[in-house]
């Protein structure tokens, strides 16, 4: 029996609304907001600039440094302000998801700082953060080979679904439970990030990734529109 989603969505349907806006932090060199369903992320880019501390500098090329942070009130059970192991891991994942498209070889000893802040969390926050970060980096004029777009696919019991919401991600336990697979693709189609939590066969995994790539194309269109409509 296929799973029927609580919000009535089709299995391969993204949540709505999907809202993206560029230039939300005037002080930043580049900034953007990305919302999908009830998850809202903002990203601000500062750089390229001299890297501190000096011992972290790379004399051969520029460094990308991402920090992911959830507001204490972005979730039901308040999160104590400050970094956690989870936010530290997601910060690194975000760097790895984006670095392949950045062209910062010319910026020796310099850093491009990307700060991601989650204002409202309803699953898929790291993906929303990556989507906001990509727009913010483009807005900041950082040279990039391509854009990256991120979404989480998954499996609910035996059914492959797209863009898990909070209930599907954390609370669904029937049958085979829920499997969460956040992924990031370049627009060209290369995978720069994948994580998996749950239980899935290789065949179903292939199906999930196919579904994910299709919807990353959808997200790319939203990111492109937001950048092209800057100032409107």
């Amino acid at each position: 029996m296929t799973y029927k989603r609580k919000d009535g969505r089709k299995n391969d349907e993204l949540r709505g609304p999907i809202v993206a806006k560029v230039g939300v932090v005037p002080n930043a060199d580049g900034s953007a907001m990305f919302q999908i369903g009830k998850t809202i992320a903002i990203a601000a880019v500062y750089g390229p600039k001299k890297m501190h501390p000096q011992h972290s500098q790379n004399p051969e090329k520029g460094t990308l440094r991402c920090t992911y942070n959830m507001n204490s009130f972005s979730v039901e059970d308040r999160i104590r302000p400050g970094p956690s192991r989870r936010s530290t891991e997601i910060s690194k994942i975000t760097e790895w998801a984006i670095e392949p498209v950045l062209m910062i070889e010319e910026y020796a000893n310099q850093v491009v700082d990307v700060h991601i802040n989650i204002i409202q969390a309803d699953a898929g926050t790291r993906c929303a953060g990556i989507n906001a970060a990509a727009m913010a980096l483009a807005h900041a004029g950082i040279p990039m080979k391509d854009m990256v777009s991120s979404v989480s696919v998954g499996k609910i019991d035996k059914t492959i679904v797209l863009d898990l919401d909070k209930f599907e991600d954390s609370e669904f336990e029937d049958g085979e439970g829920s499997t969460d697979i956040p992924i990031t693709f370049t627009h060209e189609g290369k995978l720069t990030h994948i994580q998996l939590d749950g239980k899935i066969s290789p065949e179903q995994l292939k199906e999930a990734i196919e579904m994910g790539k299709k919807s990353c194309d959808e997200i790319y269109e939203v990111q492109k529109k937001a950048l092209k409509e800057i100032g409107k």
Partner: protein
Amino acid sequence: MKTANITQDRIIEYLEQGKRFDGRKLDEFRELIIEKNVAKKAEGSVRVRLGKTEVIVGIKMAVGTPYADSANKGNLMVTAELLPLSSPRIELGPPKFRSIELGRVIDRGIRESKVIDLEKLCIKEGEKVWTVFVDIYSINDDGNLLDAAGIGALAALKIAKVPKYDEEEGKVLYGEPDRDLPLNNINPLPVTVHKIGNSLIVDPNCEEEDISESRITIGSSDGIISSMQKGEAVPITIEEMNKAVEMATNIWKELFKKFEKLLK
């Protein structure tokens, strides 16, 4: 880059004529915008803009044990995070003094004015009380984060709802608002007065804040002062302090009128 030395001279010169670069009067605030419920998982949240300065304040509530010396009162905790996201001058790392001071000054403003009726947040004396967490985040720093944060904190408190509490299970039922946060009819808003040369101004933008020699934050409500904090190392005269207090309590009237209108 901090405000250039020659620009600083001009700002001071202009202030002596009673004028500011953006056409404001010395005791005039920038345009205030308040947006309600920007973070729906919070018990109450607002986005406040003062000109280009932006903060987001959210209220979360949890049930815990009371402090020994206030067994029948709920708890209040105010935290501020000046995010590196909001300014090129803010670095990564543990909260620096500026964040800590901001949190503590706003805390004092709320606590000392007794705007929250903490006794009404007692569930079982000595055992279970509500804690109100007020968390402040800077989103864009163009000066005067402090007053923006104070306005945000009061606004968030005013729209916050206490969630239902299942006493049997000992669980807070988030997402199920039960009642308004119990507040007294007091409206503490901070007004920070800055000394630049011989002039006193309020709500400086970044350019002006760079040359502020000394500042004094005055939290008041309808003429009653409940908190004060002087910052920076330049001393002020008694006249200047009295003038600052007068400015702050007068400005409160205008500010509160706008505040009420925006929260309707």
